[in-house]
């Protein structure tokens, strides 16, 4: 029992640091770059994604023995898209401000590689409780990464942070940081910092790890060419 609990704890915490979906596994780049002009949006997007991830992981792991292997990709997509529609309604009803600022990227949670990747790699192979823990861990890791990105960009680019005005920065904010170019730059620097801190010997490459088509693609290895 103790061992069981231990491994569940591991599922929960691995997503936050060791296998952080954004900063280490490099999945879900689109929302990471797009909505993080403000720290608040980062948290909102992160939590919305966590909700979808939790729901889809639970449902997929419950149905993992029922869904035939051949139609699993369309089946997963429908389950994920349903949860996205649901969170869209919830946000529109209760937090309309956030709904407006996330805009189209809320719909695009459907094609977030993190959710698809976890469904394919974890939920379709593991039990419900483990899948739920995995989803919460990954979701929190994603939220944390988005919050970090959002904070850096908001402080440097707008001189504000969560509604507070930063004294020195607000005088001459570097507008570039809240523009698209700043997003790429900030993410590059943060990933470099993570590489440095984790003292990785080999530089990180975009892999096929999270790619849902890794099996059919057959070109496992460094890049999906």
């Amino acid at each position, binding site marked *: 029992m103790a061992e069981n609990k231990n491994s569940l704890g591991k599922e929960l915490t691995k997503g936050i640091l060791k296998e952080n979906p954004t900063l280490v596994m*490099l*999945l879900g*780049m*689109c*929302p990471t*770059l*797009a909505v993080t002009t403000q720290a608040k949006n980062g948290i909102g997007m992160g939590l919305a994604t966590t909700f979808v991830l939790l729901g889809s992981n639970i449902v997929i792991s419950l149905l993992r023995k029922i869904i035939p292997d051949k139609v699993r*990709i*369309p089946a997963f*997509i*429908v389950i994920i*898209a*349903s949860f*996205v*529609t649901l969170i*869209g*309604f919830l946000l529109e009803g209760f937090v309309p401000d956030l709904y407006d600022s996330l805009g*189209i990227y809320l*719909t*695009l949670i*459907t*094609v*977030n*590689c993190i959710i*698809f990747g976890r469904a394919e790699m974890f939920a379709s192979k593991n039990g419900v409780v483990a899948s739920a823990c995995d989803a919460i861990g990954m979701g929190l890791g994603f939220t944390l990464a988005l919050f970090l990105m959002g904070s850096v960009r908001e402080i440097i680019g707008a001189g504000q942070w969560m509604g507070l005005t930063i004294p020195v920065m607000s005088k001459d904010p570097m507008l*570039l940081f809240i*523009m*698209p*170019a*700043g*997003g*790429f*730059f900030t*993410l*590059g*620097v943060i*990933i*470099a*910092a993570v*590489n*440095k801190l984790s003292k990785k010997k080999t*530089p*990180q*490459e*975009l892999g096929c790890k999270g*790619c*849902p*088509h890794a099996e*059919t*693609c057959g*070109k496992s290895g460094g*890049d*999906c*060419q």
Partner: protein
Amino acid sequence: MKSLMVILLSAMLTDNFVLSKFMGICPFLGVSKKLDSATGMGIAVTFVMMCATLVTYPIHHGILVPNDLEYFDTVVFILVIALFVQLVETMLKKCIPSLYKSLGVYLPLITTNCAVLGVTVLNIDNSYSFGESMINALGGGLGFMLALVIFSGVRRKLEYADIPETFKGVPSTLIAASIVSVSFMGFSGLFS
């Protein structure tokens, strides 16, 4: 006619899907290492974007809106795209094997490319007409290809550069992307 031109060019340049809307970053970073694969991916994405628009537009306006089912957009669209990609793959394999050979590998990857879903949803959000939607899809696809092709050139040079150990790989690629994105900012204000 003039407004169609504006839609085409703004989808390609000022509102470039990759560099200013951040859609399709994964293939942008993954497939932009070589020029020929960047071109192949770009053509495949343009093709699927236009076909997806061709199918989702009538579905939205013909079936979902009259029945007050607009909230099914996401589910229906993504399913249509997934099925469509599958269909195109099978058809190409049977009918034009030579094209399949060059595009085949990229097709399955397109289902999870958010630019394709993005363009279909944006067409509905902006309440474009059918013609405008198709032009927007064409422009989006061409813009995607443009970004990929330009960036594959940048990355070739980057391979010979002496980069600090920590920045090797993805960080340097992202920073290079940021500079390419700055160059696309030059187009902003082209159409007001």
